[in-house]
């Protein structure tokens, strides 16, 4: 049963590549956003800790 | 932070009768991560010259660009004769003349054509008025040559001619003395004296002394926060 589910009526390659690509893009986007946020937060904290007069 | 300006010589007509031409409160401007100035206030009455001085990179030019509305300050309000410049942009711009680092002339056009164009943007003047102003600044001989062949000093004198003819109440000059010889220097001092005598005002950013009479002069020292 699992096999013909994976087979996707002959369109396996197209359907799974589409869903795989979608999952990849969504995850990359999420990870990139979180990493950028972490970096920016660290930078702000460092600047605050340095307490330079602004 | 640079404090309140407007200290210095008493105005000619006594403080209260003079109308405050340009007033600014709480001006704040940043360049990237650096704060150029904060809570800067100034009030300039008619018949006064505000000499803005300070080290290089302390924000003199930026302050002048903010005052004439070219740059947006982070915080703060600028009022021209009591009205915020955001609401009276047109009459504010017609009432002041701006001289920046760049002279604002097209290299292809001749001095005469350039002067005619810049003045015609502000008021209608007939040719001989323009000609004797060109004579006054010593450009009569080269008036018909394209500006690209003029020396830097001559170009600066051409922009001074535009300022003279602009009939603007407030002059905002950024380093007017650059490239000028001693004669040019004294010409500017006389111009400023005459301008104040007629009830005009000026904000001048410069490293050199303005050579203006003490009673007109006011100082604003910009601290270097670099």
């Amino acid at each position, binding site marked *: 049963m699992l096999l013909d*589910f994976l087979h*996707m*009526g*002959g*369109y396996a390659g*197209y*359907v799974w*590549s*589409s*869903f795989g*690509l*979608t999952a990849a*893009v*969504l995850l*990359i*986007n*999420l990870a*990139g*956003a*979180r990493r*950028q*946020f972490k*970096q*920016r*937060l660290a*930078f*702000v*904290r460092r600047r*605050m800790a340095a307490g330079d007069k*602004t | 932070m640079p404090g309140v300006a407007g200290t210095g010589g008493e105005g000619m007509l006594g403080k209260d009768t003079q109308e405050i031409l340009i007033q600014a409160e709480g001006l704040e401007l*940043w*360049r*990237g991560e650096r*704060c150029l100035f904060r809570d800067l206030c100034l009030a300039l009455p008619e018949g006064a010259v505000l000499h803005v001085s300070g080290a290089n990179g302390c924000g003199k030019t930026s302050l002048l660009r903010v005052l004439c509305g070219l740059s*947006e300050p*982070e915080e703060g309000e600028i009022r021209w004769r009591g009205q915020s410049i955001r609401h009276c942009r047109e009459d504010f711009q017609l009432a002041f003349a701006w001289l920046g680092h760049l002279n604002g002339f097209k290299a292809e056009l001749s001095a005469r054509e350039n002067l005619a164009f810049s003045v015609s943007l502000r008021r209608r003047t007939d040719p001989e008025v323009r000609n004797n102003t060109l004579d006054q600044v010593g450009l009569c001989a080269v008036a018909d040559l394209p500006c690209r062949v003029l020396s830097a000093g001559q170009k600066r004198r051409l922009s001074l001619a535009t300022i003279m003819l602009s009939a603007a109440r407030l002059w905002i000059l950024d380093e007017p003395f650059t490239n000028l010889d001693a004669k040019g220097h004294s010409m500017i001092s006389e111009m400023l004296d005459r301008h104040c005598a007629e009830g005009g005002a000026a904000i001048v950013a410069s490293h050199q002394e303005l050579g203006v009479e003490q009673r007109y002069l006011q100082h604003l020292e910009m601290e270097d926060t670099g």
Partner: protein
Amino acid sequence: MWKLFHQFGSPPHFYRLAGYLIPWFGAAALILILVATYGGLVLAPADYQQGDGFRIIYVHVPSASMSLFAYTLMATAAGIGLIWRIKLAHAVAAAAAPIGASFTFLALATGSIWGKPMWGTWWAWDARLTSELILLFLFLGYMSLRAANDDTGKADRASGLLAVVGVVNVPIIHYSVEWWNSLHQGATIMKLGKPAITGDMLWPLLMMIAGFGCYFATVLMIRTRSQVLQRERNTHWLKEL
């Protein structure tokens, strides 16, 4: 109303609110997308014409609609930022751009993958795909203009203006491409039309769109927070981070 608008517009308030909402939206997005995927791949019957190949619709249509939604949101935020000079609005616009661009790329990629079995080629000048391609260029133009400006304030306003002008043009571009495409009549079979959608084919699609929407909100809030930190200068509330 103005007080709420202003209060919500203040960066510290938004920063804390976003921090609170992000996990909730993230969880909602995850659940919706997983259930919709299950619904689309397993429960929905195969299309009589395109067989199981049509299931790509469950990723293509949501990302296409998200790409358009992202551009509109970006332009609206930029417009608010330009008119009322609210820095938070510019931060939202700056945050929405990369997400919108990736959704547009996704829509293009899944569209051409879907097109392969239908038309035999990876790319056919189908009206919707061409509009999506032009939308991608609008996003890339926005982001490269923003990157070319080093001062954040100028970058916000310059790219904001471009977005506002762009959003006025998007419908014009869309209809001109439709018109261009419909000229040579043979296009009807090639049209990437939605196959007839019935009940149990439809709900997974709607749920997937909702899931993508929640995902979009989550990543938008994360990116906006970092944009806010980049723009924020008065230090008092930054100290408690």
